[in-house]
């Protein structure tokens, strides 16, 4: 039977539609799979980390006796600074349990109070010496083991010997609870402190400032250098073998594993220039080496997308080459350049590997004051907490991840927004 073209097409039509439907299904499945994974990641991290934003706090009325703080009544700063505030806090706790007399038992009782209470009291008295002789109401986080207990992360059904807290300690804590001295509040330490070995005192502020300084250095170096390089390569450079080689190398650099930049930083910035270890300056230098290729490539693409007619019109009315670039081409390409820069910065924010080599994977208890003081960065802080034996650090780690992710989302949203807002189509 003779068949014409239409028949042949009709016969295959169903099959082709099915293939089409399957093809779309593959795409949708891929997207769904990615979303499910992302969702699981978020849910695990948020469910683990949410409780870290809440601190279990103990309120104690601490009599600040002059005999302990300032026996001679001089109110000299050295005396106030060195006074035994710990004794005051522990005496206030002992007053709650007058029947606990045994020395070893008392030590167990004292485990409830975090060292943070001592530091808080010291700070208060130093700021206002008039408090000496009065009774100060002190609300401070409890030690992390008890924080975990209050948050239900200690399995009290286990035999006593397997727990970090014994039955009496749990009993004392419950008594304090019944007396209304235990409360929950926003964990301020998480936001205002730098790292600490005591989970309840550890915070991300130090790492956050470290990240900020590091990124500032990175931005200050890689943005102008990247734009200048892109402008030259795009607007001035002749097309020859040399520029080809440069281009290939820039693309290669963008694909180099980041740890290699760390090794380079160790050899050049620390070894040759003698810059200090662990400094955000060096971290910024290393990360700008890493982000430079990204910015150059993005900037070149943005410059290429400015139509030649703009350049010709500018030149036509008598603008010099430099005026053309600075007044017309660069402003039009800027949204694209910014997008590339922000994405490069977001990558730099999440980087740890190159920083290991230059000493930024470290315990640093002071918040950095500038680009030369020792500091660490957010992802490194997460790594250090993940590796700590104390269980309370796990929730701190998740909280730090939430904060890091928030910054990354903000940066990436800004990049998308900039592109949408200023992008021009010709």
């Amino acid at each position, binding site marked *: 039977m003779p068949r014409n073209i239409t028949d042949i097409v009709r016969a295959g039509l169903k099959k082709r539609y099915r293939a089409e439907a399957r093809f779309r299904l593959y795409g949708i499945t891929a997207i769904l799979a990615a979303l499910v994974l992302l969702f699981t990641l978020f849910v695990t991290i948020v469910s683990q980390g949410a409780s870290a934003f809440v601190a279990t706090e103990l309120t104690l009325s601490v009599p600040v006796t002059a005999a302990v703080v300032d026996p001679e009544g001089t109110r000299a700063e050295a005396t106030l600074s060195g006074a035994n505030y710990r004794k005051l806090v522990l005496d206030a706790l002992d007053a709650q349990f007058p029947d606990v007399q045994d020395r070893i038992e008392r030590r167990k009782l004292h485990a409830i109070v975090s060292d943070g209470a001592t530091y808080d009291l010291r700070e208060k008295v130093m700021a206002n010496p008039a408090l000496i002789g009065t009774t100060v109401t002190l609300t401070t986080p409890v030690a992390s083991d008890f924080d975990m207990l209050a948050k239900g992360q200690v*399995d009290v059904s286990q035999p006593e010997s397997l727990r970090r807290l014994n039955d009496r300690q749990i009993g004392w804590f419950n008594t304090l609870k019944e007396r209304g001295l235990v409360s929950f509040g926003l964990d301020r330490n998480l936001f205002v402190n730098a790292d600490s070995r005591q989970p309840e005192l550890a915070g991300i502020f130090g790492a956050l400032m470290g990240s900020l300084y590091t990124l500032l250095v990175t931005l200050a170096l890689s*943005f*102008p250098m990247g*734009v200048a390089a892109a402008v030259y390569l795009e607007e001035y450079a002749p097309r020859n073998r040399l520029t080809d080689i440069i281009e290939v190398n820039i693309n290669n650099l963008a694909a180099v594993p980041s740890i290699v930049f760390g090794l380079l930083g160790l050899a050049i910035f620390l070894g040759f*220039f003698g810059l200090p270890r662990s400094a955000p300056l060096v971290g910024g230098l290393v990360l700008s080496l890493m982000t430079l290729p990204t910015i150059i490539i993005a900037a070149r693409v943005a410059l290429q997308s400015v139509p030649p007619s703009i350049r010709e019109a500018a030149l036509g009315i008598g603008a010099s080459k430099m005026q053309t670039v600075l007044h017309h081409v660069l402003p039009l390409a800027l949204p694209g350049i910014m997008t590339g820069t922000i994405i490069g910065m977001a990558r730099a924010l999440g980087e740890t590997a190159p920083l290991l080599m230059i000493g930024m994977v470290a315990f640093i208890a002071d918040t950095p004051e500038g680009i030369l003081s020792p500091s660490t960065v957010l992802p490194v802080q997460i790594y250090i907490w993940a*590796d700590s*034996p104390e269980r309370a650090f796990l929730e701190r780690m998740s909280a730090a991840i939430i904060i890091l992710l928030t910054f990354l989302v903000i940066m990436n949203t800004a990049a998308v927004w900039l592109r949408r807002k200023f992008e021009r189509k010709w």
Partner: protein
Amino acid sequence: MIGKPFGRVLGAALLLSAVVLSAAPAQARDQIRIVGSSTVFPFSTAVAEHFGRMTPFRTPVVEATGSGGGIKLFCSGVGVGYPDIVNSSRPIKRSEFEACRAHGVDRITEVRVGFDGIVVASARGTPRPDFTRKDLFLALAREVPVDGRWIPNPWTRWSDIRPELPSVAIELLGPPPTSGTRDAFLELVMEPGCLEIPACQELKDTDPASFALRTAALREDGRFIDAGENDNLIVQKLEANRSAFGLFGFSFLEQNADKVQGAMIEGAEPTFESISSGAYTVSRSLFFYVKNAHAGIVPGLREFVEAFTGPAASGPEGYLADRGLIPLPEAEREATARSARDLVPMAVPED
């Protein structure tokens, strides 16, 4: 005219980049710098924090670089550009000491801070075996001697090795080759475990190089699983996989005693007391080394060493014990504290 200032900003920024690169040489330092072992890291940082809060000195900066990497940095020279202290989970080697001397670091004080036990742990509620080091060697070595010949490890269940052991598949999660814990495990378990077998003793006498190779090679057929540097992760995996065992430091067992249990080794349970007394055999000493030449240059160095070795930190009831450090016997700690305070330089290590 947005162009003009833009051009100037660009020029100025380029200039700044050049200036930044050429400026800032190493200046005087008012802060102690510590590098080294990640096993000693939790203890060293705890002392550093305490020291920073309780004294007028600044809080020392502690980096976790691993023992080997730390010693290398420490030995690169004298001066504020180099670390003052290195933490180590093993004694310094003779070759490292020589390298130190070659760079002018000739006076080093060795300070032993305490012990760390290595535990073979499993999820709570699973049977608790009593391993010998020989059992562990036979279960984990890539090649084992059978009837005098070295063959690829044939055992799949613990009970294949000794009928008293649990009848579950051999599966042990442990740290990667770069870890000091793994080095210590090889030295403290695999080597002595191997030597209990006559064929192995023979090999050591006839071919020491091959002996070293065979005791250092762990199985790669999925029975020994490299679980990465993160000990918390191993604890979590043990909870999920109830037939597996995990290898990590005693401080992680102490913090997670409600979730995991340490297997007995040679009849001894890993506890504070048994490790301290030496009854639990898989334990090692932890050290730090001080660069004596820095004592006058970096403020607080002597005071820090004193704080670390003092009873408030390293004593039997010190705060380091709360964090899982197993303290030295009190008499030894006092002797160590004394020689540390006077910064008595160590002799050339033998090895």
